C-alpha cells in the first residue's frame, strides 16, 4: 500500500554497457561449465571485444552457451547453442517474434529451450523486458 503513494523516484541516466559486466573468471561447478567458460572467454578476449557488440540477442550467443551449460549439461547446452546460432543467422532476418530488452536487442533466454514445458516463459513480441 505504501508503495502506491507518490514519492520521489531516483532515476539513473547512465547507459549500461554489457562488455563491462563480463566475468572472465574461470569459476565453474563442473567440467562442462569449465569447458564452455574457457571457449567463451577465448571468444570474448580474441574476437568479441575487438569486433564489437554485434549479436542481436540478449543474452548474447556466448552468454547463452554459458547459461545453457549452467541450466543443463554440456551436451544439451551445445545443441541449444547450435540452434541459437542458426536462429541468429536467420537469412530472412525474421526476429520479429521475439520480445525485446529496453536497449532494443531481442530477448531470448535459455530457460525457454531446456525442453521443460513448465520453465517456458512466453513473452509476446511487443513486450519490453526491463533488464538484460
Amino acid at each position, binding site marked *: 500500500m505504501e508503495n502506491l503513494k507518490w514519492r520521489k523516484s531516483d532515476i539513473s541516466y547512465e547507459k549500461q554497457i554489457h562488455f563491462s559486466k563480463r566475468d572472465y573468471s574461470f569459476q565453474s561447478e563442473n567440467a562442462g561449465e569449465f569447458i564452455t567458460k574457457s571457449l567463451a572467454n577465448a571468444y570474448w578476449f580474441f574476437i568479441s571485444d575487438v569486433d564489437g557488440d554485434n549479436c542481436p540477442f540478449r543474452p548474447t550467443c556466448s552468454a547463452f552457451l554459458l547459461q545453457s551449460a549452467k541450466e543443463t549439461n554440456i551436451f544439451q547446452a551445445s545443441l541449444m547453442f*547450435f540452434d541459437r546460432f542458426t536462429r541468429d543467422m*536467420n537469412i530472412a532476418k525474421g526476429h520479429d517474434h521475439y520480445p525485446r530488452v529496453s536497449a532494443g536487442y531481442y530477448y531470448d533466454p535459455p530457460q*525457454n529451450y531446456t*525442453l521443460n514445458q513448465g520453465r517456458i516463459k*512466453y513473452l509476446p513480441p511487443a513486450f519490453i523486458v526491463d533488464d538484460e
Partner: protein
Amino acid sequence: MRNFLTIIFLIPLTVHPQSSSFDFHSPENVKKFADHLFCEEDYLRAIEQYELINQKMDNDTIKFKVMLGYSELGFFSESNDFFRGINDKSIFYPDAYLLSFKNQLISEPGLIIAPSIISFNAFQMKSFCKLINISMLYEDKFNISKENFIAPFDAEELNSVSTFYDYKVEPPYKSPALAGLLSAVIPGSGKMYVGEWGDGITALVVTSLFAFLAYDNFHADHTTRAWIFTGLGAFFYAGNIYGSVASAQIFNARIDFDFNNGLELFLKQQNYFLPDYDFCE
C-alpha cells in the same frame, strides 16, 4: 473608518473556520470525505478514511466499498478479508460474494468452488453461473458439454465464449515430436512446421552446406577438414532437431498465453459479469 470596518468584517471569517464547534473528525464527516474520495476514484485514500471509522460505525456499505476499493487497487486478498466481515443478511452480501469470486479469479485463476448457496436475484444468479463456467476454463480437466457451458451467457457474449470453449477442447497446438521428426528427415522442416520459415530455411541451407563440404573434402582426400565439417554439420543437424522440438513447445506456450490473455481481456470487458456499482449519484 473604512479600514476599521474592513477589519471588523474580516475577523469573523478568520475565526469561524478555526472554531472548535465544527468537528472535522467526527465519523459522519470522515465518511463524507471518504465518500468524496471514493467517487473521485482515489480508492487508496478513501480506504484509509473508511478504515478510520469502520469500527465505530459498523456499516456494511462501508465494508463493501472498502472491498470494492481494494479490488480496484489489485489487493485481492485484503478485499476478500473485508468480505468475511460483511453480514450475510446484508443486501450487499450477494454482490460481495460475487466480487470475492472475481478477486479469486484474478489472483488465483482456477475452478471456483462456492462454499455455500445463497439467495441471488436473477441477474446475480446468471453472473454466478457465468463465473463458475468461466472458471472451468482454467482447469486442466475440462469435460462439460458445449450446450451446458454456453447456456448462462447472453447473445452478445456467445461468440467469444464459444471460441474459448473450442480453444480449450481442441487447442491448435503443434506436436513437438512431429517437429523433431520432420527436422530429422529434412533439416529445418520442423521449424517450418511451427511457422518459423526463416529459421527453417537457414537450418536447411547451413546443414546442407556443411554436408556438401564434408562430402567434397572426403572425396578430395582432405580427411581432417572433412571431419571438421562433418562434426560441425552434425552439430547443426542435431541442434536443429532439438531446436524444432523446443520451438514447438514455445509455440504451444504462445497458444496458452494468447488463450489466457484473451480470456482475461474478455472478462475485463465484461467486468467479470458484475454490475457497475454507482455510489456517487
